[in-house]
């Protein structure tokens, strides 16, 4: 029996552990080593250069701008997405005083929820291609058609260095909001009714009820969403690579770390340098997640 058991355990783990080791763990370990070399070509022999790549990164203007763009997205995507999603979830689910049992507080809540969620099931690349066309600078773009008809100058956010990153931000929020509406709606519905009733008896209603009762009770959900959106903001690739001009342009005004990793590795064959960028990206992601989780824990203790 014991031998059967051992053979069964080994048999079930063999394939998944092998695949995971070959395709995830070993490349991960290799990346940490390659980041310390000047490996450039497919056939070149890598040379150990210590922390040189990292030192070079600190003076690499394009990479620093990319990291800055990631940090801007990290600062703005989570609050904008969560703010809009909370507003919509509140309007759709009501505050307990309204009929919270049926489809929602407003008529057609189910319909709104389906529509809002839809961008989430579209591949990010499709969304990027779509908005590249919508934001076309001439009057044939969806946005400019009506603008020019009204007599305004056509705008081309993707062609202007000052505006392009805001277009990226908008598209990221556009796609993410619906998912969080669904998430927050579910969380609001799961709050015990009595809490709302008690608060309503105390005279709280509308926006006040939402801010005082609903929002504090949604804290865990909001924080999970914040981490998730923040990590996604640090990992942005497809929207920038596919939607913006010159794959991160114009003039590097929208480039992000992931795009620079890809560009350096597969366009310039700077494998060592690209791995060093990957390590920095990894460190930032982990640092952000740990930071948020730490802050959460402390606040939670103070809260109780």
């Amino acid at each position, binding site marked *: 029996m014991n031998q059967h058991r051992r053979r069964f355990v080994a048999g079930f783990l063999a394939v998944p552990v092998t*695949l995971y080791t070959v395709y995830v763990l070993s490349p991960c370990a290799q*990346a940490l080593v390659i980041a310390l070399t000047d490996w450039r070509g497919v056939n070149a022999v890598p040379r150990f250069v210590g922390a040189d790549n990292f030192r070079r990164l600190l003076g690499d203007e394009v990479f620093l701008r990319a990291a800055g763009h990631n940090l801007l997205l990290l600062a703005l995507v989570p609050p904008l997405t969560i703010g809009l999603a909370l507003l919509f979830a509140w309007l759709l689910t009501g505050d307990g005083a309204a009929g919270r049992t049926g489809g929602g507080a407003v008529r057609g809540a189910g319909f709104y929820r389906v529509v809002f969620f839809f961008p989430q099931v579209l591949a990010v*690349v499709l969304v990027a291609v779509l908005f590249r066309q919508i934001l076309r600078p001439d009057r044939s773009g969806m946005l400019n058609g009506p603008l020019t008809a009204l007599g305004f100058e056509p705008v081309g956010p993707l062609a202007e260095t000052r505006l392009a990153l805001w277009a990226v931000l908008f598209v990221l929020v556009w796609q993410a909001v619906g998912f969080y509406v669904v998430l927050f709606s579910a969380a609001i519905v799961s709050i015990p009714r009595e809490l709302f009733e008690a608060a309503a008896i105390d005279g709280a209603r509308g926006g006040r009820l939402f801010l005082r009762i609903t929002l504090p009770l949604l804290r865990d959900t909001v924080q999970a969403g914040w981490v998730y959106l923040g990590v996604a903001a640090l990992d942005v690739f*497809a929207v920038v690579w596919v939607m913006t001009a010159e794959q991160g342009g114009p003039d590097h005004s929208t480039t992000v770390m992931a795009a620079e990793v890809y560009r350096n590795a597969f366009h310039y064959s700077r494998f060592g340098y690209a791995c060093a960028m990957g390590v920095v990206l*990894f460190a930032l992601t982990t640092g952000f*997640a740990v930071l948020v989780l730490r802050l959460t824990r402390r606040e939670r203790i103070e809260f109780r």
Partner: protein
Amino acid sequence: MSAARARLTALLSHAVLLWWTLLVTVPIAWTFLASVKSEREIFGDAWSPPATIRLDNWARAWQQAHVGRYMLNSVVVVACGTAGTMLFGAMAAYVLARYRFRGSRIVHALFVAGLALPVYLVLTPLFFVVRNTGALPLVGPFIGLNTHGGLILVYIAFSLPFTVFFLTAFFGTLPETVAEAAFVDGASHTRVFFQIMLPMARPGVVSVTVFNVLGQWNQYQLPLVLLPSDRDSWLLTQGIADISTTAGYDADWGALFAALGMAIIPMIVVHALLQGQIRRGLTAGAFK
């Protein structure tokens, strides 16, 4: 609350919700409008209707722009990738959840650690790993660069952390008694897994399957690196991005919009049919 005030509140709510509804639906509707316009009309007024509805855009996208081919490739890769992920992920999760052996904690921790791993850290070495496996005897030609086999194996490996993490927790909650009764009846470990435990875990398995299907269908970065040169093997995301970016001024714009429409329609249908499942699957993923 007075009746008038309640009505005003409802009106305001609808105004806000309608604003976002338009923001979501109008771009998509505009794509479909452009997909039946001629080249001249596409570069003319953005909102004018086409003189004649040009379905030939759709035919060109399907055949000359190879969207049909790309879509078939995507379906094959995602179907095999998800099937493999669920089979191997469930096997690993089951063993890790219900059998104690030396090193089980470490194996579980290694899988879960993968959740925090950005794909960009491993991208460069991964390319060389897949390139090198292509030189293996016998299996090499099926799993190297530019092969769907290689991409499928990579998809499985990268989907394992979440799948194992979620299903380990799920298998842990299932009751012991049914499995014990089966063992007393002389059923083998393998049989207990496939005939008793896996069916019991169905709700969890369905959620994770939905999550993996959408995640793998969405993938762009991995095929971009691992299917670099052979256009016939490209996936839908790659193909459409390519039509949009690199084609430049020679681009067949009508076909581009038709291709977009073609990629959107199946998602509208899938979303309409499975919206409850999709929501559950994706929200399960939010707490990874």
